[in-house]
């Protein structure tokens, strides 16, 4: 049996622990995703999808449970270890693209590489240009985010997530704010990269049409996951 890229066991997440407004958002989540798998995470708003993605993306820690990324138990990692995993093993596409306004599209796409190596390299630049070409933005690589449309910005964010060829791609409603046509394009691109590189993908979406085109769907309702 091959090792899953993500293995979640009994994940719980509470906010405001120890206060009167303490609330458990996730009530014990189990989920395995294998390499090359493309999984849709669906469910009503407020059910805890983003919370789960943030935990898997190592942006915050779970209250309880076990998160393994590529066989590494993240509980054993300190901040430096988690930071490294975020940089090398995970590509995160946020709901609101979250580009850095002070940097050009090309620089934004190169940023994980700049962080990894301490400075930009020719290899990163070549890889970033290739990815921007793939998302149809080669003519816009020098533009700052505020000179790009929403769809273009989201495509830069995808190029950025893919730069270092991460084992795991997490996307939180990457097409949520886009028109259907652009949404389809972006989805197709992610699917393509997933097939090419064999990375595991977990993608939050409200669009049942897109969910259908994934390998499988899991549904979050009130902090519980149903497969």
């Amino acid at each position, binding site marked *: 049996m091959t090792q899953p890229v993500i293995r979640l066991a009994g994940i719980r997440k509470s906010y405001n622990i120890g206060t009167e407004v303490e609330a458990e958002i996730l009530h014990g989540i189990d989920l395995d995703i294998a390499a090359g798998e493309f999984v849709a995470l669906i469910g009503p708003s407020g059910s805890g999808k983003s919370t789960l993605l943030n935990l898997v993306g190592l*942006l915050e820690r779970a209250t309880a449970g076990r998160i393994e990324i590529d066989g590494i138990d993240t509980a054993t990692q300190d901040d430096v270890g988690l930071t490294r995993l975020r940089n*090398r093993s995970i590509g995160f596409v946020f709901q609101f693209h979250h580009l*850095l*306004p*002070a940097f050009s599209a090309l620089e934004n796409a190169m940023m994980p590489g700049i*962080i990894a190596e*301490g400075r930009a*390299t020719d290899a990163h630049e070549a890889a970033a240009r290739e990815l921007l070409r793939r998302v149809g933005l080669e003519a816009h690589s020098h533009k700052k985010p505020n000179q790009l449309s929403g769809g273009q910005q989201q495509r830069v964010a995808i190029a*950025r997530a893919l730069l270092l060829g991460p084992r795991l791609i997490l996307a939180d409603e990457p097409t949520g704010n886009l028109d259907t046509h652009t949404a389809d394009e972006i989805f197709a691109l992610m699917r393509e990269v997933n097939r090419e590189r064999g990375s595991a993908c977990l993608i939050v979406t409200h669009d049942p049409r897109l969910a259908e085109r994934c390998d499988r769907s899991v549904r979050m309702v009130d902090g519980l996951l149903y497969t």
Partner: protein
Amino acid sequence: MRIRLPFELLVALRFLREGRTQSLLILGGVTAGVAVTIFLTHLIGELQSSIIERVLGSQPHVVIRPPDEINRRALPDAPGTLAIDQPRAQRLRPVDQWESVAKLAAATPDVVAVSPLVTGPAFALRGEASKSVALMGVEPDAYRRIVLMDKYLTAGRFAPSGTNAVIGIELAKDLGASLGDRIRVQTAGGREEVLTITGLFDIGNRDLNRRWVFVSLRLGQSLLDLAGGVSQVDLRVTDIFEAEAIARPLADATGLKVESWMTTNAQLLAGLKNQSTSLNLIRSFVTLIVALGIASVLVVSVVQKQREIGILRAMGAGRRQLLAVFLIQGALVGSVGSALGASLGWGLLQIFASVFRNGDGTPIFSPELPADIVIGACLIATVVGTLAAMIPARRAASLDPVDAIRS
């Protein structure tokens, strides 16, 4: 090939450029602070050294004299006796065993020159004129290292020997004498000599120009009836502010009266110290204000850039990298600001030096800026900038990626 900046420097520069108005304002603040500091430091330094030069130009740093003669009571005081001590008039007395005292002084570290001097009152006479003067019997080679006589000489040479004498320009005028002329001196003891003027000096002090008559040590001793003796030993030291520290142990060792310029010019010294204290106070406040300015601008910047910080963290930038990003911003503002400030300070100095001049047209202050002041100010500004960035930088580093992004 393009220059690839390190991640931290790259992000720091972009962040500064993004918050252009804030960056320029704080850069202006640092520039002004550094310019003011450099300008004031140099100005006051120049002022103080010119005052010190004026005072110490004609004064030894340390003088060794015989101890004061004090009244001693012949009978022990009966209880309840009221006694009035009247200080005794001090007569001309020699320094006991001055040669060995001079040797001891010369062997003291940081003493660079030792010069015996016999000095006492006399009258200088020429024709109808009769002037009260101070006879100064010196060894010229030793004395010119105490008071830089060669610098003050307006005619002739500073080489009193035999019956050759060097006198001030005022006295020469009063006596109607000039180089090569003869004058007669008479001492209280009734001795007298005819001297030939072989040098004229202008020491920058009218009173001294009128009173000092330099003769050889030997002639001074015989005129003042102090055969083989001297009335004081003058010293010059390396660091003038160490003069008192050098004088005290000498006094203890010899039992003589050893006074430094610092005790004889106590008021001047206090004035200089007050000036230095004010300067330091101003510098400290300027530094504090600059530090607070940099810190507050960066604190605001951390809040404004919270989202970007979160994005960078999410992409795998470590806490230390973000700490560095903000420390570098502080250092950049400090160093660039100090470079600009140094230029501005230099410019101010040029203007000041060309506008404010002495009567003879020379600038009151040297427009040349010593490198150590500039380097010091720039170094401090850069270090202060980096330290001031510490609080905001730590805040940036402590942000959790998810909180930073959500906000």
